[in-house]
């Protein structure tokens, strides 16, 4: 590893890009060394991570189009941080309850390109195909399955490389790679993202129809093969002053037990007075690893609403970071995590309030209905000194339906400002026996009653999904979980 003495950018010959946890000695033919401003943190380099980084870099051509320079900047910044970031262990607080060894013990390899030209993903419903949608397959933006007609003038949805407006590319460039809260997975995405999908809403523009981002992992291995193809979809959303848009992110697992690792990042910048309603539905394959980052920056008076329903994946984690950049912002986070299989559902959220008159509401609910299932919630709301007259509420409720089902919740409000209204609560329960009995007393058997009660527990979040087609879809997914065919 001596060759890594000053690495910023490591290039190895193309192929093999397969990567396993058993480090192989590979000759490095070229090491590009850039100006090194910070001292190299060699001592902290994790060989596993380095190999992963190399494999990712090998799998991608360097961006040829100058329009992709923002992407290049992301890559540069990410590979830099990657060098000093080891693979997380249970000793690291953010991963205390989330075991990522399932990923680490697999043979990880970047998805091969180009992306397939047809998609086995379940077709979108008729209603959906009418709506603007962007298909992202293995991190690549593909034309088939995308429909971007009917968007208002000035709105752009698509790959950055296809953007025709130079000023747009420049504008995007102003924002990317300015995030210092990320972790290893954020950086992995930064190194491995093959493209940058952009949703751009100009000032004052209200986008009527929701923009539907459909993510699909085409490359997958069989269950038990212990191989995980890794993809790194990356999306950047910029809503200028007074703009409004609904974003629906849907992660589709498809049929069967397909194994893969999706490592997506969504970055959102919300201009003054802007409004985003964000729905995030995660329905990955039961064998998949799914580690997602969502980073949101909110300018003054803007409003960001997230409704998440996650049920898929063997290991699923959502890292959510919301940062307030001006006063009077509104943030509403409603999340529902369902662990009905042998799986982990994890939400790590962080909301930072630095300006006065903000309001934030967070509701996190999880249901663990498998004795090998686990839910993790670490929700931090930080009300800093200047965030006076802030109204912050945080509530988490967990439902454990099986004897050894576990939940680790750590809601925490950190309040430094003194003139604030904050409330929080956490409750963990089984179904109320008295409620079950009420059903039985009216002739409804406990199994049906249980389903109705579990469904209704989730309904508090599901009913907040702003678009009815998403809501219907999610309701059906939950029904199927409750009543597996």
């Amino acid at each position, binding site marked *: 590893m001596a060759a890594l003495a000053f690495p910023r950018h490591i290039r190895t010959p193309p192929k093999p890009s397969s990567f396993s946890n058993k480090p192989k000695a590979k000759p490095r033919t070229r090491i590009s060394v850039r100006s090194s401003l910070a001292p190299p943190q060699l001592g902290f380099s994790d060989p596993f991570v380095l190999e992963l980084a190399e494999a990712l870099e090998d799998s991608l051509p360097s961006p040829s189009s100058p329009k992709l320079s923002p992407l290049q900047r992301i890559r540069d910044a990410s590979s830099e941080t990657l060098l000093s970031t080891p693979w997380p262990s249970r000793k690291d607080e953010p991963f205390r309850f989330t075991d990522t060894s399932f990923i680490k013990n697999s043979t990880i390899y970047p998805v091969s390109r180009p992306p397939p030209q047809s998609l086995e993903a379940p077709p979108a419903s008729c209603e959906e195909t009418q709506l603007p949608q962007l298909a992202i397959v293995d991190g690549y933006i593909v034309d088939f399955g995308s429909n971007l007609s009917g968007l208002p003038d000035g709105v752009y949805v698509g790959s950055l490389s296809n953007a025709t407006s130079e000023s747009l590319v420049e504008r995007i460039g102003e924002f990317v790679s300015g995030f210092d809260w990320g972790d290893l997975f954020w950086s992995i995405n930064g190194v491995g993202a093959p493209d940058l999908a952009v949703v751009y809403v100009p000032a004052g523009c209200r986008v009527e129809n929701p923009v539907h981002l459909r993510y699909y992992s085409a490359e997958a291995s069989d269950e038990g093969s212990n191989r995980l193809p890794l993809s790194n979809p990356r999306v950047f959303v910029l809503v200028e002053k007074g703009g409004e848009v609904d974003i629906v992110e849907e992660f589709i697992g498809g049929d069967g037990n397909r194994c893969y690792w999706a490592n997506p990042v969504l970055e959102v910048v919300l201009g003054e007075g802007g409004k985003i309603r964000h729905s995030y539905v995660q329905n990955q394959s039961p064998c998949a690893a799914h580690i997602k980052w969502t980073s949101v920056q909110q300018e003054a008076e803007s409003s960001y609403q997230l409704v998440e329903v996650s049920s898929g994946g063997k290991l699923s984690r959502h890292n959510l970071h919301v940062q307030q950049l001006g006063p009077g912002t509104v943030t509403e986070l409603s999340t529902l995590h369902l662990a009905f299989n042998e799986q982990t559902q994890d939400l790590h959220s962080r909301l930072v309030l630095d300006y006065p008159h903000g309001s934030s509401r967070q509701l996190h609910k999880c249901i663990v209905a498998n004795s090998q299932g686990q839910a993790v919630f670490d929700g931090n709301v930080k009300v800093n000194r200047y965030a006076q007259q802030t109204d912050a509420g945080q509530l988490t409720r967990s439902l454990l339906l099986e004897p050894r089902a576990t939940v680790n919740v750590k809601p925490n409000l950190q309040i430094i400002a003194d003139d604030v209204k904050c409330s929080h609560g956490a409750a963990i329960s089984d179904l109320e026996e008295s*409620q079950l*009995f009420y*059903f039985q*007393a*009216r*002739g409804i058997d406990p199994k049906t009653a249980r389903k109705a009660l579990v469904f*209704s527990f989730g309904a*508090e979040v599901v009913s907040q999904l702003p678009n009815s087609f998403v809501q219907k879809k999610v309701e059906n997914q939950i029904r199927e979980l409750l009543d597996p065919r």
Partner: protein
Amino acid sequence: MASAPPSLSTARPPTAASLHGGRRRGALPPLPSCGVRPPSLGGLPALRSAPLRRFAVRAALSTADRSAAPVESGGGKELLLEVRDLTAVIAETGQEILKGVDLTIYEGEVHAIMGKNGSGKSTFAKVLVGHPDYEVTGGSMMFKGENLLEMEPEDRSLAGLFMSFQSPIEIPGVSNADFLNMAYNARRRKLNQPELSPIEFWAYVYPKLDLLNMKADFLNRNVNEGFSGGERKRNEILQLAVLGAELAILDEIDSGLDVDALRDVAKSVNGLLTPKNSVLMITHYLRLLEFIEPRYIHVMENGKIVKTGDISIAKTLEKEGFKGVSEM
């Protein structure tokens, strides 16, 4: 005890009453709480169709009379509920609440249980429908010849036993319409009838709302969530109206109801009464009994039925309290 004038009904067919009396061994009026019915169930079809609940009880019996006269009730009616020496404890603590309850109800009869706070009335009602908070430690309870103790709560409900809760709980997230629809469909499944879709169900339930003067938006609200005390009670009766019951146990359905609501509820309960259907009311007040006229009034004390009689018990209670009743 003094023979209080029977006042249950103004229209009292004397023939039926005498017939009724003639079927008993003694001259004593029927004694439901310890009636043992001979197996002769046939005959008297004319009587069976008569509105029996309207027959007055000539005289209430003292507790001393009860053991002396094992009599049948119902005049050819089928036995609906028969509870014998029922004892029950609180499951968690083992504390005994019911200490030997006896009660017999024939089809078509209206009964009422009165008694002090904490005497065990609600516990009795809940034990009958299989509430998990309690454990039956002795005695028997038979409903339509079936052993309730061997039936799950939902099966007791499907068999035609309904209890309206004294304090109905909220079920957040489940709409009243869905809840009722689910319950109604469970009934239909049991009867091998096709289930009703939400729209079909709406058509079925809508007129029943009217009957109870309930606004349609009650159906869209979650079960009892944010309901006022009176609204919850009405909602219980709505459930009864939708599901029907051969024996409806109404636990303090009158508490928290304003006069108009009480009239609505009583109207709807009376509407459900047929010669086959029975009601067991638990109440503290005479007022309800003036709307839904019981044939028998039982007084519960310390986990037992200590006295059974007619409406005069309720009247004495109203005037003189429980002290007056025990001196009756």
